[in-house]
């Protein structure tokens, strides 16, 4: 009985601090608490990120200078933004495979619409946002109203968008677009004391992070997580599943649009820009402790995943490892990360998850009733879990 009543508390105790924990790690004298959190699947990514960053600094001390740290963040910005967009879709229990195609489409659109005419920059930005919203709406509505699995919908839109943009543009790279458009991705405020420059991309990333964290703590974000956890329960609770999920797809396409605009500055206009971005984004999100299938994970987790992945690539550039092994290491890391969080989470959360599922099945809101009901079922499933592990 004591263990049963302890579960809801332990759920709260685990989820609440880990959400704020990544932003406030600097506080406090609670070393044991830190250790426990560091071994947590979400904490381990932060530890991994710190270890990788330290390794880079050891190999290349100039990396620690503010200027090159800023350039590092600038380089992470597109993938981090795409990962944050993908986070909203994944946490609602869906996939967005069309992101890479959207990035490519936006980059190619910029190349062909802006050209060298600086005055076209602003109107074209509106066109890009329009394309982003349209793709998100199609993905979302086909998933929710037509009930096509999002994996298939976004696979289809990926083929359609990529094929259409290549058909329209002929699949050839153009010369770089107007300089003021490229400045969004590569420019910045110069002559700042201490860090000498702040790239616009870093500011865009900061704005996207703030917006995403704010959204994820609004009722919208909570509902999205609830839908990913158990969409039937969320429906019973009165949430508009179709509209919330569609919004998540729109956010995802818009984030791909923002990343595309930044990438025009970094990489220029080329049909290979954005290729494979959907898998990199999903890798980053998963690395950050967000669970495929939905219902668990945070924006900051996805962000940490993106930074860890890019830091890993940077580290590999500094070491003698051949560039072609980058994929292999990325593959090994994501399997290890997910396996680790799976094993730890399963062990730690086996019981609490049982009580949560009992909770949603009976749609009971009263915590005392829940713990009383879950008491008989908990030991049996816990025992089975031990056998399975």
């Amino acid at each position: 009985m004591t263990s049963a009543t302890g579960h809801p508390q332990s759920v709260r105790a685990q989820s609440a601090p880990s959400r704020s924990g990544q932003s406030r790690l600097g506080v406090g004298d609670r070393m044991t608490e830190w250790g426990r959190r560091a071994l947590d699947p979400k904490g381990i990514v932060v530890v991994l990120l710190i270890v990788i960053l330290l390794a880079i600094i050891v190999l290349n001390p100039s990396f620690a200078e503010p200027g090159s740290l800023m350039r590092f963040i600038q380089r992470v910005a597109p993938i981090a933004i795409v990962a944050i967009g993908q986070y909203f879709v994944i946490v609602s229990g869906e996939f967005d495979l069309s992101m890479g195609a959207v990035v490519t489409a936006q980059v190619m659109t910029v190349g062909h619409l802006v050209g060298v005419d600086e005055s076209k920059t602003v109107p074209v930005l509106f066109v890009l946002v329009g394309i982003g919203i349209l793709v998100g709406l199609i993905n979302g509505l086909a998933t929710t109203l037509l009930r096509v699995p999002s994996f298939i919908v976004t696979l289809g839109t990926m083929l359609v968008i990529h094929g259409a943009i290549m058909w329209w543009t002929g699949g050839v790279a153009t010369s770089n677009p107007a300089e003021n458009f490229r400045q969004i991705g590569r420019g910045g405020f110069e002559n700042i004391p201490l860090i000498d420059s702040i790239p616009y991309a870093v500011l865009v990333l900061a704005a996207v992070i703030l917006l995403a964290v704010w959204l994820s703590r609004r009722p919208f974000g909570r509902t999205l997580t609830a839908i990913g956890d158990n969409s039937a329960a969320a429906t019973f609770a009165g949430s508009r599943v179709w509209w919330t999920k569609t919004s998540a797809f729109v956010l995802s396409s818009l984030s791909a649009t923002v990343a595309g605009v930044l990438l025009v500055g970094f990489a220029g206009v080329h049909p290979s820009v954005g290729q494979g971005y959907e898998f990199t984004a999903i890798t980053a999100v998963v690395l950050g402790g967000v669970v495929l299938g939905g219902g668990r994970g945070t924006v900051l987790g996805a962000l940490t995943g993106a930074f860890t992945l890019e830091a890993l690539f940077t580290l590999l550039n500094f070491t003698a490892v051949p560039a072609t092994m980058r994929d292999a290491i990325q593959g090994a890391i994501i399997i290890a990360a997910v396996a680790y969080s799976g094993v730890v989470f399963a062990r730690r959360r086996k019981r609490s998850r049982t009580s949560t599922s009992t909770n949603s099945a009976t749609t009971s809101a009263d915590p005392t009733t829940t713990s009383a009901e879950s008491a008989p079922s908990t030991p049996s499933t816990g025992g089975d879990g031990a056998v399975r592990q």
Partner: protein
Amino acid sequence: MLRRLDTTALVYIALIIVLIIGAILVSTTGRNLFSPGNIRDILTGMSVLGFVAIGQTLVILGASLDLSVPYVMSLASLTAAQTMDGRDGMVIPAVLLTVAITALIGLANGLFVTVLGVHGFVATLGVGLMLKGYLDTNYQGTEGEVPWSFQLFGASGIGPIPISTIVMLGLAAVVAFILVRTTFGHHLFAAGGNAEVARLSGVRERLPIIGAHIGSSVCAGFAGLLLASRLGVGSPTVGSQGTYDLLSIAAVVLGGTVLMGGRGSIWGTIGGVAIFAVLDNLMSVMQFNPFLKDVVRGLVIIVAVALYARRRIIARRIRFAQAPQGPNIVAVARPDADGKPGQDSTVTEEGSRA
């Protein structure tokens, strides 16, 4: 009337419709879709994707995915071509070695998914990336040489029907038999439908999933062998160029198999593969822009699966209406169908037992 047909029948009706429309379109250009040469082209186009899709059906029935197939195919083509190295006597050892290596990769996928509890998407993406890293590091271009005796496998045929397609259909028949008639097949459906329910019913739910992953990798290996036989060499990029991972998943779903596992059939998948092959051939004959082909493929995937998804819900209601306490179950089923199709199977299991 359409509602009473099962999804597989619907897939073949769709295939016939595509064939009729295709024949009319092709005849407007003064050619014949059903000329022996063209039939041969369509069937040849089916065989490689067919092998991959048969394996992909197995893992999808088990509620997993296999994104590593393109790299398994490339690796298989290289292994085979290098082992054969132009010698007739090495054909059989090379094929056996390829099967063994691909089975090991499948075993790794299966163990990651079941024992370590890694989502199939992540596990096979990770294994695929590892294989890609290995291939990119160790191979700069095509290698090995396939002897003429093995090239015949990809090149010869009986009348307009290529040998490779016959082998592919034979494999489909064997796998279909395994799925429908053996314990392994039943357990795979059960574990894919709902692993928890399967486990509580006394099924060792991990074994069928591991078996499905091994089957998928070996099937991808067969596809790699076929490609090696056609090319005459092994190539490190032959799998990823064809995007066989996503296309095979699309073909499986087009064939009416539910992406969340537990429901579907091999013959549906073969129908889906055939639809893709006919469309591809049609667009080639009509001289479509290659980029426009992707647009058409993408639209076909979304529209077809949207039609199935709509129909499948109706079909389920009819099945439940025949059960004694139908209305209750329908009431339970509806919110599930709104959100997560994967949980429908739970309802089915409980419904059939109630």
